């Protein structure tokens, strides 16, 4: 059986600005990235800024094109899918719910739009589905005709998640979906993800720099460093004993709220030159 998402040997580089002559150099952002994500699983991707996490998400979402390699959705190259078929299969949730929602549309309009684009639903059915989804993500019905500006950060992120789920996609691509939220709100959103996984059997690529969040939500973990996946494995095994030196550094750098411990050593001996 095919995995729901497979990335095969993806390479992607960004060109630097060209000089008057010459072609400028290309900066590799993804280097031979391969991964597999099975239906019903959550794959957590961790790594520092600039490691290529978001580029990977944008590649899967077809917002960027790889120089070489392929992205397969259920065995099919994602570039071969029609925009409508792709949108029905893969949906994104981004970090900042302040910029990812159209400020001039009401919640009803924002949530209805994916169904309008999918084209298969009559108006009455769209409205029913929007109302059901509001309940599902824990937003009160009275907000139906509110604008994003009238919502809190946590409510906005619920809207972003609801919008992504409207078409019942098979795969959710979440890029730092809780990083802009307060911890009490983050806990609400993580709980929502748990429930949605249970109810919808959600398959999810979940990118975060927060290892404690990844540990809670992910079945498998991939660690990115300088454009490469340097380690991947089953979640519990990974957190019990990370193999790669960078994974160990990342794990030891997170600070639990336990007093009396010194700050960890974060030297990178492999970078010494």
């Amino acid at each position, binding site marked *: 059986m095919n995995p729901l998402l497979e990335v095969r040997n993806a390479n992607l580089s960004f060109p630097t600005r060209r000089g008057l002559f010459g072609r400028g150099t290309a900066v590799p952002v993804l280097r031979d990235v391969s991964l597999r994500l099975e239906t019903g699983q959550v794959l957590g991707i961790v790594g520092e800024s600039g490691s290529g996490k978001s580029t990977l998400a944008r590649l899967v979402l077809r917002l960027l094109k790889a120089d070489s390699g392929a992205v397969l959705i259920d065995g099919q190259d994602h570039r071969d899918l029609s925009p409508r078929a792709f949108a029905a299969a893969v949906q994104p949730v981004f970090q900042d719910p302040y910029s990812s929602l159209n400020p001039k549309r009401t919640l009803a309009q924002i949530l209805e739009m994916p169904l309008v684009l999918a084209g298969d639903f009559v108006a009455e059915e769209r409205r029913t589905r929007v109302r059901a989804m509001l309940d599902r993500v824990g937003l009160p019905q009275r907000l139906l005709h509110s604008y994003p500006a009238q919502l809190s950060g946590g409510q906005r992120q619920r809207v972003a998640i609801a919008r992504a789920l409207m078409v019942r996609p098979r795969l959710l691509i979440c890029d730092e979906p809780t990083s802009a939220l*307060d911890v*009490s709100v983050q806990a609400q959103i993580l709980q929502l993800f748990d429930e949605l996984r249970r109810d919808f059997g959600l398959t999810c690529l979940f990118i975060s720099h927060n290892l404690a969040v990844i*540990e809670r939500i992910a079945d498998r973990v991939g660690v990115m460093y300088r454009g490469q996946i340097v380690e991947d494995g089953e979640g519990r095994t990974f957190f019990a004993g990370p193999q790669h030196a960078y994974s160990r550094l990342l794990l030891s750098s997170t600070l639990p709220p336990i007093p009396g411990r010194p700050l960890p050593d974060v030297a990178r001996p492999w970078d010494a030159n």
Partner: protein
Amino acid sequence: MNPLLRIEDLHVDIPGAAGVLRALRGVSLTVNEGETFALVGESGCGKSLTAMAALGLLPRAARMRAGRLALDGQDLTRFSQRRWNALRATQVAAIFQEPMTALNPVLTIGRQMTEAYVQHGLGSETEARRRASELLERVGVLPVGRRLAQYPHQMSGGLRQRVMIAMALMCRPRLMIADEPTTALDVTTQVEILRLLQELQRDTGMALLLITHDLGVVAHVAERMAVMYAGEVVETGPVAQVVTQPAHPYTAALLRCLPVQATRDRPLVPIPGVVPALFGPLEGCAFRNRCALAGEDCAGSIPWRERAGQGYRCLRDEVPA
């Protein structure tokens, strides 16, 4: 321990279109000489505003009244703009979350670092240059000569925060106020910056008022802390006590909803509901609409209580951890 910064019963009102926002409602805290004091809370709780009041940088529209606002015995409530400027140049320094917005994008690092030093008559241009070089060297912004001529956008976030720290140290402050200094940084860079701040404190004896939402950071670097909620300090005390035996239900709730590594099987308990709007007078405990321990008595006035070095504003004696 000598108190350095003393804030007592600080109120800040901000009038706006929707009414008067009672942003700070009687905040009291003391930062002692040389210590690290953490001010903790979620967005909108007033932690940054408290810092801004201590820096004399409140928004123009804000109305402040305080029982006491004093640095090293000087009564800051009576300070003129000129004296505030002098105070910020010589005794109190600040660093912020996003060094890119705090730094001037069109001035070189060297120019920004030396400007205030020279203007406030702390030394000549040459002396300022020398001190800037020493400090960049100390905080690890290398090679110093090249960095002095660079602009902020030519550096990474971690380096920019190091530059901010070096700039803050130019005038040998006795108190550094750091508002979410590592929030925008990667976890490994965060540790590097926190280590640097600790070393600098050891070298210079300056006190650090650390404003953060991150209880993990607090547990690792601060000696004492205050937890703020809805414009009030709800709990204060030694870090080792507050994070292991919280006396206020909000502190306990914050700890319960924090994902911590290697505790995957402990359920996360979100805090239900939302923070109350801070318009108009607020009766009783501001947290009671979200608190599992709340009863009718919580709608009345809540006394400030003290127990074993911890101070808190709550009627309950037992708060389950």
